[in-house]
């Protein structure tokens, strides 16, 4: 019993250490913009301007004293429009905020036109001040006439991407090529993250739900070492990769190895990874704020091939990913440690019996998986943007890719990622933008039905 006790105590301190390391690594970032409720719009970098007017009879009259609630990203204030029918709301940072006007306080006989909704989400980019949220009221009778005659227009929350898609629909050829290009790049980035998930599963049996946070960590480190500590972009990517590897190593040393020693079963381990994911993700939110972080980059097109326009960030992300993936494939196929990794992933007991040091292989897999995820996050931050939950957002796409390719196989993860990356982007031609992940998830479920072991998996793996 005393040894178990000591082990338990040690595991607890290790967990605390792991979280502490994440904390200290993250502390280099500036804390999120300080906020008090409500934030003075004069000093805030971002603000929303809410305007409520009565347009039922000209001239338009301001509507004073209407309560407006602005919420989102952990921020929530309720203010009232002033005598001029306007109120400016200072924001804690950029992001998407829900603006809700209390229509019940508007004088009776007035209504919003059917195209305007009392609740809408307003997107505020970094440094945008007085982003408008207009509420122009008309008389209730006018509104009814309007509803009867005009076709319903999309609400304020309508999807811009969808709208522009519809305009171009019909010109399939012009849209399939850019979709294939972005899908391929996204698939390559996904592959970097997926290999770690697949190899960790293969060597330890753990479905790591906290892998998204390794990706986010890499992206946040890339942000830290370009925007806070000004380093050149290529160096920041290397630093993010190295720190990602360190994060993976520390996680294994401080948390997963002690748990393996305690012989915690796989399902509890999976639940531990969910708890870790939740804790680390929201720690990122505290340290880096709830908004989207932008890395300095050149958005002008570097290469134009017909309808495909790629920026230098796109091209370099793709090239780096391809080079690294080829390197990993070569390492797995030709080196001693690569062969040992595949052997452990294939059959752990047999590998151990043949004299392979399983624990050290697992440690290398965690470190390499963390480094690859960190690189994926850094490239993703350049390719798109990064925020506290970017990794969690693509976690299910990673799982879909790994399941599709065959759990536990590194090459399968690569193939599955490319398929999922293409699938997500090509399906967006027909589907509304918010459903593009849905297509990938449904594809995963269908694959599980038809061929549960995945494209490259072996049948005996599904048990």
């Amino acid at each position, binding site marked *: 019993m005393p040894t178990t006790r000591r082990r338990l105590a040690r595991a*607890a301190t290790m*967990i605390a250490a792991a*979280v502490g390391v994440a904390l200290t690594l993250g502390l280099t970032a500036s*804390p*999120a*913009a*300080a906020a*008090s*409720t409500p934030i003075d719009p004069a000093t805030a970098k971002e603000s929303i301007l809410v305007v409520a007017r009565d347009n039922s009879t000209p001239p338009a009259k301001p509507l004073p004293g209407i309560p407006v609630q602005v919420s989102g*990203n*952990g*921020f929530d204030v309720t203010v009232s429009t002033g005598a001029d029918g306007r109120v400016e709301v200072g924001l*804690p*940072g950029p992001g998407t905020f829900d603006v809700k006007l209390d229509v019940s306080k508007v004088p009776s006989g007035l209504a919003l036109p059917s195209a305007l*909704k009392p609740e809408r989400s307003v997107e505020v980019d970094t440094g945008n001040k007085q982003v408008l949220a207009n509420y122009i009221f008309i008389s209730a009778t006018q509104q009814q006439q309007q509803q009867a005659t005009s076709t319903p227009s999309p*609400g304020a*929350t*309508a*999807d811009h991407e*969808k709208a522009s898609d519809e305009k171009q629909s019909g010109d399939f050829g012009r849209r399939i090529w850019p979709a294939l290009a972005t899908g391929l790049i996204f698939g390559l980035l996904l592959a970097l993250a997926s290999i770690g998930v697949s190899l960790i599963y293969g060597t330890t049996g753990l*479905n790591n739900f906290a892998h998204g946070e390794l990706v986010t960590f890499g992206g946040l480190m890339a942000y830290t070492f370009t925007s806070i500590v000004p380093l050149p972009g290529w160096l920041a990517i290397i630093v993010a990769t190295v720190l990602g590897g360190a994060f993976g190593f520390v996680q294994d040393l401080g948390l997963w190895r002690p*748990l393996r020693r305690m012989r*915690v*079963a*796989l*399902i*509890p381990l*999976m*639940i*531990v990874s*969910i*708890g*870790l994911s*939740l*804790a*680390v*993700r*929201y*720690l990122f*939110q*505290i340290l880096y*704020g*709830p908004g989207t972080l932008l890395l300095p980059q050149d958005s002008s097109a570097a290469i134009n091939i017909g309808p495909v326009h790629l920026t230098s960030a796109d091209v370099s992300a793709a090239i780096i990913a391809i080079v690294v993936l080829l390197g990993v494939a070569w390492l797995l196929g030709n080196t001693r440690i690569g062969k040992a990794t595949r052997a452990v992933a294939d059959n752990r007991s047999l590998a151990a019996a043949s004299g392979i040091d399983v624990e050290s292989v697992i440690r290398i897999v965690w470190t390499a998986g963390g480094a690859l995820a960190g690189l994926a996050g850094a490239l993703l931050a350049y390719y798109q943007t990064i925020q506290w939950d970017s990794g969690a957002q693509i976690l*299910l796409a990673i*799982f*879909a890719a790994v*399941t599709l390719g065959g759990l536990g196989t590194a090459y399968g993860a690569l193939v599955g990622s490319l398929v999922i990356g293409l699938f997500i982007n090509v399906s967006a031609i027909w589907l*509304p933008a*918010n*459903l593009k*992940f*849905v297509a990938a*998830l449904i594809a*995963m*479920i269908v694959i*599980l*039905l038809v061929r*549960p072991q995945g494209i490259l998996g072996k049948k005996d793996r*599904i*048990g």
Partner: protein
Amino acid sequence: MLDWTFLPLTLNQIISPQTIAFALAALGLSVHFGFTGLLNFGQAGFMSVGAYFFAITATRFGFPLWASILAALIGATAFAFLLGIPTLRLRADYLSIVTIAAAEIIRYTVQTPDLTAFTGGSDGINGAEAGFEKLNPFPDRVYKIGVVPYTNDDIWVIVVGWVLVALAALFVWQLMRSPWGRIVKGIREDEDAVRSLGKNVYAFKLQALIIGGILGTLGAIINIIPTSLQPNNYGTQTTFFLWTIMLLGGATTVLGPIIGSIIFWVVLNLSDGFIGILAATHVLPLSQVQQGPVRFIIVGIALMLLVIFRPQGIFGKKKEAHFSV
């Protein structure tokens, strides 16, 4: 000025509709995981499906209350079939990925602009409670419990909610003492042994998935009656909250998830309050925006510690708490 009002408000968390909703849904989850051993990480999806069936039929098609409830139960059952038929034959960890994916599919799909006429898009649905409040026998006045004034509608949903919790607990308790309960517990312990006794394991798992899903749906209905239906309230974090609640009380017990829900919301409320105080007195260097995420970090760490050090929860028996696989 320090704001200590959270202290008396915490007592009201004990009976709040949110506590009731999570108690019912966590009880459903314990039918899935605690008793049958199914790794359902999509309980939020069951809640969401039931809530949408209830709210859409009530507000868009004007169904009476009983018909809306029936529609919600049918919706949850259909979702269980849809989810269970392809995946219940697979290994447990596949089920976890598929259920979490299915819940996210629901959450994304209901927010599609094309479906806004039915689902209200990302704004969700208001006003589904009208039919329920029409049956309210409580006279219209202010009821004060502790420091909180309640309307007669609040009291009505709280009373109905707790009656529902009691009935559900009784039902699950009796069910698990019945031959059916012994078989699903057998499936949890050793699926192949039960199969070798000639039982149709697959059918029993599907039945357990339906029963637990229906409990989740009932929870969701209680949740949306005093507020409104918001699609983003049924994301993965809701499922993780439910797992924490279930493991806190004890996954293999009937009272565990209910007491777990009470403790969970009381502790979260207290921690939110104390962190606010600590930040206001500058003991913790956190701005107002930074205080919100702290509760999720607490839940995450609590989940890890629970699974590692006390997998049987507060009320569970150690011998039932070993996880298979």
